[in-house]
């Protein structure tokens, strides 16, 4: 579950990153574009009117030159009317030039305010200087022309003055051409700069889109890998679920089978109990005979009910052990003593016991195992010997207990599943029959102690049941997983 959530986060995160990067790229591109248009484009827009103004100044200046030429010419012919007309034209053009220069200065000032980069500010300073120079030169020019007009009133032409006027005219012309050339250069530069910036911006965007594309491709690959992992995870989980389901089905089948058999075993003694009651009631049999039979059968029923309860505890890992330190030989001898008293067959019970050490066990449960194994041995042994051997392995922290008999032995077809439930039913006659659960419980109890139990036939005659358990329990509280009774044998 956690793993799946993690994978979902991976996919969600990757998609989120792609969308975020694309968004950043678009935003960056837009920002770049707006940056270019705000500064450079606005500045470049200032150059065009300046160019017009300077061109107009140049035109007005040429008009003034023409007016001067007219004045000189009409002075020669003494045409006073035309002279005055030409003078008016001259001063009108002069006013236009002054006005143009003021407008130009204003435009340069506005441009200087807008300029953010140092280079732009420097350019506008140069333009301001040039336009100021033009103004100064033009003022000097007009002063000289004023002097010229005064002299012409006296019908004189001062050659020096004319030379000065010509010189300053040339200077003005040069300054105007210089400014036009500068404006043309700046306009070209700004156009180039816009193009360069646009190119840079485009290149940047292409680089970013390429990077994002590469990242997206990498993430796509990564997501496909995650998808493969996810698929593998799902396949694995499906397989696990399938196995678990099959196991559950098998357990369910085993449980049903157990309930069916247990129910049969619990109902079976009821038939003779009912029979005894009917026959005693009708007077067909003796009351004592009936009661003895009923008591024997109810005792068997009780044993079976207890065994079924124990099976349920073992199968649900709820078998609790009351561990205590018990002298093992004392326990064994106590059991064999009572068995010997009840012995009605030519059978000898022999104990070959190792050191009488203290073993940490659930006394009642181990006693249950020993009694069960001894009872089985006695049921199937008509004559001979039943031996109980113990071996203490201190180094290995274990004691081995072996019960062997000279009885019928275990049928070969039963041997591999001897410790399963109810498998021993059907191989015994009435005297030998038990609950069919005894050996299953023995195995469960021994495994709960952390030990193991085995069964085998002897080469000649009889069977051997052997179990080993730890002398001291490593964990006082039994781990339920150790109680699994479906392991080998």
């Amino acid at each position: 579950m956690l793993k799946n959530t993690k994978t979902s986060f991976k996919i969600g995160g990757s998609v989120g990153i792609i969308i975020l990067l694309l968004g950043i790229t678009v935003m960056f591109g837009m920002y770049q574009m707006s940056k270019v248009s705000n500064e450079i484009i606005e500045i470049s827009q200032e150059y065009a009117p300046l160019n017009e103004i300077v061109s107009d100044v140049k035109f007005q200046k040429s008009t003034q030159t023409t007016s001067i030429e007219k004045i000189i010419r009409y002075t020669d012919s003494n045409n006073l009317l035309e002279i005055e007309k030409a003078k008016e034209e001259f001063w009108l053009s002069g006013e236009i030039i002054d006005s143009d220069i003021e407008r130009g200065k204003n435009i340069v000032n506005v441009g200087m305010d807008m300029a953010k980069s140092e280079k732009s500010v420097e350019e506008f300073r140069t333009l301001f200087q040039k336009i100021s120079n033009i103004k100064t030169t033009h003022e000097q020019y007009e002063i000289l022309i004023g002097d010229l007009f005064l002299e012409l009133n006296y019908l004189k032409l001062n050659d020096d003055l004319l030379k000065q006027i010509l010189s300053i005219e040339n200077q003005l012309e040069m300054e105007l051409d210089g400014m036009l050339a500068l404006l043309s250069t700046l306009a070209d530069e700004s156009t180039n700069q816009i193009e360069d910036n646009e190119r840079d911006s485009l290149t940047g965007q292409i680089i970013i889109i390429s990077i994002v594309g590469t990242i997206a491709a990498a993430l796509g690959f990564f997501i496909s890998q995650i998808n493969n992992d996810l698929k593998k995870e799902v396949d694995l989980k499906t397989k696990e679920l399938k196995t678990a389901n099959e196991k559950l089905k098998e357990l369910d089948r085993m449980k049903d089978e157990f309930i069916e058999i247990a129910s049969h075993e619990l109902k079976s003694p009821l038939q003779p109990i009912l029979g005894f009651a009917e026959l005693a009631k009708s007077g067909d049999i003796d009351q004592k005979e009936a009661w003895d039979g009923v008591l024997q059968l109810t005792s068997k029923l009780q044993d079976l009910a207890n065994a079924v309860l124990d099976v349920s505890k073992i199968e649900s890992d709820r078998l609790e052990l009351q561990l205590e330190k018990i002298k093992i030989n004392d326990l064994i001898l106590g059991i064999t003593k009572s068995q010997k008293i009840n012995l009605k067959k030519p059978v000898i019970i022999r104990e070959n016991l190792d050191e009488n050490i203290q073993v940490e066990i659930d006394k009642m449960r181990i006693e249950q195992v020993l009694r069960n194994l001894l009872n089985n041995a006695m049921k199937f042994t008509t004559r001979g010997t039943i031996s109980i051997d113990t071996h203490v392995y201190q180094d290995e922290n274990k004691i081995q207990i072996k019960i062997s008999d000279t009885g019928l032995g275990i049928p070969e077809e039963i041997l591999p599943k001897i410790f399963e439930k109810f498998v021993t039913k059907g191989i015994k006659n009435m005297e030998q029959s038990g609950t069919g659960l005894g050996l299953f419980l023995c195995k469960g109890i021994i495994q709960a102690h952390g030990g193991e139990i085995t069964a085998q036939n002897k080469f000649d005659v009889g069977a051997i049941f052997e179990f080993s358990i730890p002398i001291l329990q490593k964990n006082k509280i039994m781990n339920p997983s150790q109680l699994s009774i479906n392991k080998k044998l």
Partner: protein
Amino acid sequence: MNVLVAEDNLFTIQQYKHVLEKNGYSVTTARDGEECMQKYNEAFLSLDTESIESGPFDVVLIDNNMPKKSGAEAVREILERCPNQRVIFASAYNINSILSAPGVLKDSVEVLQKPFSLNTMIAKIQTK
């Protein structure tokens, strides 16, 4: 009338025998599936040809869960030999599971579900 009773519980078989004999039946007993077939075959050998199909016993009362050979297996063998032999299963097992066991013919086998009254058993045997 002849009844073959196959039952592994000593008390139960004694009770069947007692009550059947009291009601005038001749009772042959068997304690496991193999003994049941042995007794059945012995009786079969003494049959005359006319009675071969209906079998040597009027009724075979048989437990299902017995040592050596199950009741179901024994019944299959009996019915193969004598298809009209009347058989009554007396079992503590679920009836459906007995009827679905391999080799048991559903139509021809009667069932007594344990535990039952001995009077019920007599009544069942007497009813045909």
